[in-house]
């Protein structure tokens, strides 16, 4: 990781600038494609988090914080879990004692029962992906953040 005053590597910055959108697009593909092929929420979320980590390593921490602020990581990580739990709560409420497990088929998302289940699964995968992405990025930010501002803080205190 480079500080602001250190020299910038044009090769790293350009390559990561080109690669990051494709990595993020691929991660969204992995999340959505989880229903028909290999993939799913956990994997796609980790790939998206890795793209944020690549941005921080190629540029610097303050730019990364500007792109992905603390509030966003908190809100996204909890909202993904809320999305999953909300879908589960909806399915419990709509099935009202019929289902033996979280049966998304009773949520009236579309006309067909099986299609409801597939759609509910997609929503759940998106929730998992949001949580995993935000948590991976947040852990990396916290681990990397430690070194720089502490000395300044101690001087000011």
């Amino acid at each position: 990781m480079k500080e602001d005053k250190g020299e910038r590597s044009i090769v790293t910055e350009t390559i990561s600038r080109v690669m990051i959108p494709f990595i993020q697009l691929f991660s969204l593909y992995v999340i959505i494609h989880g229903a028909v092929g290999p993939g799913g929420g956990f994997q796609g979320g980790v790939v998206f988090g890795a793209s944020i980590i690549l941005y921080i390593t190629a540029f610097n921490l303050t730019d990364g914080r500007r792109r992905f602020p603390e509030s966003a990581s908190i809100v996204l990580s909890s909202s993904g879990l809320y999305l999953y739990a909300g879908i589960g709560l909806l399915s419990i409420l709509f099935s009202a004692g019929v289902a033996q497990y979280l049966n998304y088929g009773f949520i009236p998302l579309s006309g067909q029962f099986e299609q409801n289940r597939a759609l509910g699964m997609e929503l759940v995968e998106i929730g998992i992906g949001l949580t995993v992405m935000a948590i991976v990025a947040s852990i990396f930010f916290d681990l990397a953040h430690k070194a720089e501002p502490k000395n300044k803080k101690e001087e000011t205190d």
Partner: protein
Amino acid sequence: MRGLSISALILIGLLGALFIYVYEDLPAFGDPNAPAIKYTKLFSMAAHDSEEQLGQGVIPQELISKLKERGFPRPSRVESDPESENGWNVFIPKNEFHYDKEEKYYFIQKKGDELNVFRNAFVIRWIEKGLKETGVPNMVTYGLADYRSYDTLGETTVIFTAGISVILLLRRRGRL
């Protein structure tokens, strides 16, 4: 402040009721002691003339009595398995314990002079009915996000808790 604590109490009560509801409703898939393999061998018995009986769609009386002796559900009809020679699928009738529809339950195979009686494990149901029930072709995904979705909810909660713990431990901003 008072309203906040009262609403928090109500929320905790609701969550507790939900937990009890979910706990009461946890699934009982087949025999919990059965290993997760395609067939579980139950016993083998001598094949006198049961092969012809099975071929005509009649269940031998000896098999019925042996199954009843061991406390297994009673078989209702038999048909030959299209995927294996000398193999028969035996079904159990509607409204047996844990099974409200007619299910493929036993598998009988002739080997030498003996009939080996197997039981279809839960995995068979998983493989054969998953696409029809959930509308998703990926076997792993419908296992992860549909049949075992309580489990996945717990896993996501574990990851969330890990992230929150890292935030609490490392984001102290100078104070200890």
